[in-house]
């Protein structure tokens, strides 16, 4: 497991865990960012700028602090998009 903020742009990963309270989980969830979901990091802003994620073709900008709450794993061939 690694933090989402350590993932290189272009890479696809699966969300394993979102730490934090109900509020933050809820906000992520309403944009379809949730445990078990496959996402791609599109870009990572300089000077601690936000990450841009691709979730099923929908792009979402997430601040670095928030993104650090997401732990991910590299996509492995057998896992399905969920």
């Amino acid at each position: 497991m690694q933090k989402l903020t350590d993932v290189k742009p272009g890479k696809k990963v699966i969300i394993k865990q979102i730490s934090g309270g109900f509020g933050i989980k809820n906000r992520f969830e309403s944009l379809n960012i949730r445990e078990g979901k496959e996402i791609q990091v599109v870009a990572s802003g300089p000077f601690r700028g936000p990450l841009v994620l691709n979730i099923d073709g929908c792009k979402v900008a997430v601040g670095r602090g928030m993104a650090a709450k997401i732990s991910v794993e590299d996509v492995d061939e057998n896992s399905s998009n969920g």
Partner: protein
Amino acid sequence: MKILLMGNPNVGKSVVFSRLTGVNVMASNYPGTTVGYTKGSLKIGKNTLEIIDVPGTYSLTPSCRAEEVARDMFLNENPDLIINVIDATNLERNLYLTLQILEQGIPTIIVMNMWDVAKRRGIHINIEKLEDALKTVVIPSVAVTGEGIIQVVDSITHFLDNKNKFKPSFKKMQDNERWAFIGTILTNLQKIEHRHPSILERLEDASVNPISGFLIAIFVIFVTLQVVVGLGELLIDYILDPIYFDYYGPFITNVVGSIFPDGFINEILIGTGYEYTESFGLLTTGVYVIFAVVLPFILTFYFMLGLLEDFGYLPRLAVLIDSIMHKLGLHGYSIIPVILGFGCNVPAVLSTRILEGKREKFIAAAIIALSVPCMAQTAVIIGLLGRYGIQYIAIVYGTLFLLFVSLGFILNKLLKGESPEIFLEIPPYRIPHFKTLLKKTWIRVKGFLIEAIPFVSVGILLINILYIIGFMDALTNFLAPIISTLLGLPKDAVGALLLGFLRKDIATAMLAPLNLTANQLVVASTVLAVSFPCIATFVVLLKELGVKDLLKIVSLMIILAITVGTILNIVLGVLS
């Protein structure tokens, strides 16, 4: 009978609303265009239905003011019917809100918008199966072209005949149950073909990449400025100035002169004559300032703004400058209110609702009211200072920019709390629909005219009357020491500075007859830009922030306007 139009941000609710009601509302390609709500009505047979365009929300658990508005309306307005607009290209996420709505048991019609884009992207959705799963009607649509709207009206008619027709029966679900439910229906009825990314899609990613994104941003800003200023000036030089000086001016002078040969009324309507743009007649300078000085820039600005909005560029700019904006106590998305502020501060202050926190809203509103001059004022500044050279315009805007940055920096340090992080959906690039773009430009230009004409007229009338009864002289003498010693301006400038409270464009135009030097014009324009918001902005600030915060902003303004003006006066004096 009440119908609420609900859905995720940026799925086209406002376009569907315009199609159904004929009421023109602003639609853009970014989340949060609708921050308040608009009501319209639709007549079917003998029934008049009230339709409300609700701000977009991702769920019924709100995370910003606009989403709160949406939830409260859903819970408190007792709607008879919900029209849930969803985005066909992003079914999974959109259905989350749909399920939350259906669980409440209110009759619901689902409009699946962006059907054309989904087809182009190779997304196949089995509508019948989706209807079975959601136990209500699903209508594919392309709202910008009007496809599917007739079917929506038909469904509403069916509903009028049988109120239980689209009544859902879902039990309340937990979050994970909802996602599982959505997952199951999607595997059954949605097929996605793999397509290579189009040029637009590649451009999307290049725009948020730190290096190429920066270059693209510079290019976009450069082109925008060129078009707004360049095209605006062309319109003035080749169309509006000739019309005013060759046809309108002589005509109106003759007409008024033949009815009121001289005296008070002639004085107010014509002033010292149309040849002088500083004559301050209601029908000469008043008309000239609105139509030949300000209107051309308003037109070009709103056209370019609409183009960038509909294309979907602005949220990407927000991502690029996010880390800088954090230093100012804001996050990247606040660039949208700021950019709107360059058009008019009123919609800009309203749009601070897309920001989450109270602190952020205050900082954004303060920065906009103090350091972002509206297009009406910019137009007059260009007109007044342009003839002395672009460097003077640059001094005004450079000063305002410095104020923008330092004010944000200081407020960020002074106010407790932290600015929340950016968390925002970035819309896909879309080729703007030209007719919609023109219509939107027109709505905004019309808005400007409706507001400008009465205020400018009242302003000119008021200033003439105040001068005639001698009130202005008394006030001028009273304030003269501040104006002349600190700001280095002649005491006649008091009138202009005070009129700034009514409208900034006409106030700045009042500087013209004072024979100021270029430096004095720079000081006066800057002070006008920083000081009191115009009355319309004042009212929305009061509505959005409350009395206490408004008073804070107003005190900041008075102090900073005098300070900045004094410093500019000293610095410019030393330099020359």
